[in-house]
């Protein structure tokens, strides 16, 4: 039995601190010391402390090392994603703090933290066991969070639908993992799996089928075609901040794990057609997501389909499987996560004030709340990929990664899709700017935490679009973990 040492504890410090924060919130809630939305402040402050401490003492070197008996990898790639999840959780709490029935419940904060813990471990996972366990730890609390408004039919149904498809996806994926475990001669560590699969005596088609089945589990997690259909329904019914969390952090966690699996455990070299399958999935995902978004009249459903489309763009970087591709994936996820959180923040405000997230309720937003409209403008133009916003730079980099990897056809499909995307984002903005507000319109009520979060996000979207160097540098640093 090997002994514990400081390096191991330091590698796991962010997770241990999140766990400690869970304990503090649990005790504070049960003992009644902290109640209502003050729990939100406690959690946000706790997350900020975790973020600050991790950044100052737990930074790995880029190549990193396998720790805790090779179950986890503490490297630049996992570190960037883990910090991103902490940030996303904090912002989600800002949006939910003042929602009655959500931000005043201790269970909400505990489940959110448990899910974040799972996501952080997903980013670190280095073997098949950790892969499965971390994925489930991230997902199971989200089933409850999606159905958190237990008195509302749509919310319960959203939680239930998510659970049903999630359980199915994990069952199918697990069976695929069991076959891969057999094909690779009993290997669980990613590198050993890659070695085992390249030497296996099993027929190619059977290995490929098992890989496809495992890919299905990932497709569910990141909402990629053909396992995307749950997303619009679940986003629509779930509390809006939870939908934001699902479409950003949860998706990013799926990609954090997928890049490691696709580049380390099942690299294209050991398995022909695997890359082609991923490329086909990327093309189908972006096309279907963007086309279906065109007809939506509900903002949450529109953002759900748009987030499916974005999953397609990000998959392009995974398909490229180069250093530039990985850099582009990390940078895109960073930008997309913060931009989409801003977009969902606007939806939260809209729903709170008008009772429903219909696009029509945006009418005359410019005359009612000019500052909020400005944040909407920044978020949606960035999602559309219009310069000079951050989304534009992110798109350019994934397109370049695809071209560099000789996937010109995929880049062409993506450019065509971006044009479709610009149309439906602009329609939303047109409603906000051109249409007249209803006669009795008042300025929208926006709570303090939401104002701060939206302002910070809008500023980021503009700044990161103009001066993308430092943010892109994070992506390059993360990519050095797999491409030294």
């Amino acid at each position, binding site marked *: 039995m090997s002994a514990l040492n400081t390096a191991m504890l330091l590698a796991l410090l962010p997770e241990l601190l999140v766990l400690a924060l869970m304990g503090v919130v649990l005790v504070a809630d049960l003992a009644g010391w902290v109640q209502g939305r003050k729990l939100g402040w406690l959690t946000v402050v706790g997350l900020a402390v975790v973020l600050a401490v991790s950044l100052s003492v737990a930074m790995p070197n880029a190549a990193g090392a396998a720790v805790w*008996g090779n179950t986890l990898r503490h490297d630049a790639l996992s570190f960037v994603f883990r910090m991103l999840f902490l940030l996303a959780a904090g912002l989600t709490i800002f949006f939910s703090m003042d929602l009655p029935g959500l931000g005043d419940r201790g269970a909400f904060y505990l489940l959110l933290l448990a899910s974040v813990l799972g996501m952080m471990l997903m980013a670190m996972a280095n073997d098949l066991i*950790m892969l499965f366990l971390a994925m489930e730890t991230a997902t199971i609390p989200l089933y409850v969070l999606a*159905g958190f408004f*237990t*008195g509302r039919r749509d919310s319960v149904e959203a939680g239930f639908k998510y659970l049903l498809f999630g359980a199915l996806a994990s069952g199918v994926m697990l069976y695929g993992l069991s076959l891969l475990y*057999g094909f*690779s001669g009993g*290997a669980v560590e990613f590198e050993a799996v890659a070695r085992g699969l390249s030497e296996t005596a099993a027929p190619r088609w059977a290995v490929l089928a098992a890989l496809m089945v495992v890919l299905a589990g990932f497709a569910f997690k990141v909402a990629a075609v053909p396992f995307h259909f749950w997303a619009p329904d679940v986003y629509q019914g779930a509390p809006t901040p939870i939908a934001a969390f699902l479409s950003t952090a949860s998706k990013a966690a799926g990609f954090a794990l997928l890049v490691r699996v696709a580049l380390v455990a099942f690299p294209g070299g050991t398995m022909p057609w695997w890359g082609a399958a991923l490329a086909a999935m990327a093309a189908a995902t972006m096309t279907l997501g963007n086309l279906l978004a065109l007809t939506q009249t509900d903002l949450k459903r529109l953002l759900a389909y748009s987030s499916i489309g974005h999953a397609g763009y990000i998959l392009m970087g995974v398909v490229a499987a180069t250093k530039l591709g990985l850099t582009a994936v990390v940078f895109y996820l960073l930008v997309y996560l913060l931009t989409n959180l801003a977009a969902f923040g606007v939806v939260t405000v809209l729903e709170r004030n008008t009772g429903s997230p219909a696009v029509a309720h945006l009418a005359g937003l410019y005359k009612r709340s000019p500052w909020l409209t400005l944040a909407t403008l920044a978020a949606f133009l960035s999602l559309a990929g219009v310069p000079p916003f951050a989304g534009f730079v992110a798109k350019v980099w994934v397109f370049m990664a695809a071209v560099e990897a000789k996937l010109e056809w995929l880049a062409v499909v993506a450019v065509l899709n971006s044009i479709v995307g610009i149309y439906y984002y602009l329609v939303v903005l047109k409603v906000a700017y051109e249409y007249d507000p209803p006669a009795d319109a008042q300025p929208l009520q926006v709570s303090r935490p939401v104002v701060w979060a939206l302002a910070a996000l809008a500023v980021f979207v503009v700044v990161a679009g103009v001066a993308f160097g430092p943010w892109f540098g994070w992506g390059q640093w993360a990519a050095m973990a797999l491409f030294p």
Partner: protein
Amino acid sequence: MVTTFVFVVAAAVLLVAALIAVLKNNLVHAAMGLVVSLFGTAVLFVLLEAYFLAVAQVVIYVGAIAILIVFSIMLTRRVGAQWGNQTNPTWPFALLAAGVLTVLFALMVRGWNPDQALPAAEAVPGDVTARLGAALVNPGGYVVPFEVASVLLLAALIGAVYVAWGGRKAEKSTQR
């Protein structure tokens, strides 16, 4: 010889029970099928010399999971109403899908005989159950997954209590 006999019996019971679990319209019977099928798996675990897992299978699956399912079947039964026919009219397609999958799996086992597959790593001697226990608390083994599993169970507990209990509270407040 004895093991082969036990295997054949357990496998047959397992498959028939699984079919009952998914085909019966009476959900209580279906749940019984599930229990028997899970128990059959435990028997196979014994044959595979995974004694700890066999016990865990009985305690966790048969003892906890199946009981929970039976409870929720009871809780979601409409008084005085039967479940009625819950099979899709598309059952020929179901049969077709099952046939295709079975053929594919048969081809796989024919094309690749797992009995001749070689292990990726060298075997370690020793009592399996003792090694399992040691691996779960070894920092150089699986202590992190072990602790994560406990966090997951705690989160599931909080979630389930919230949904079942908090839900009732929310309903009462809307009724008022």
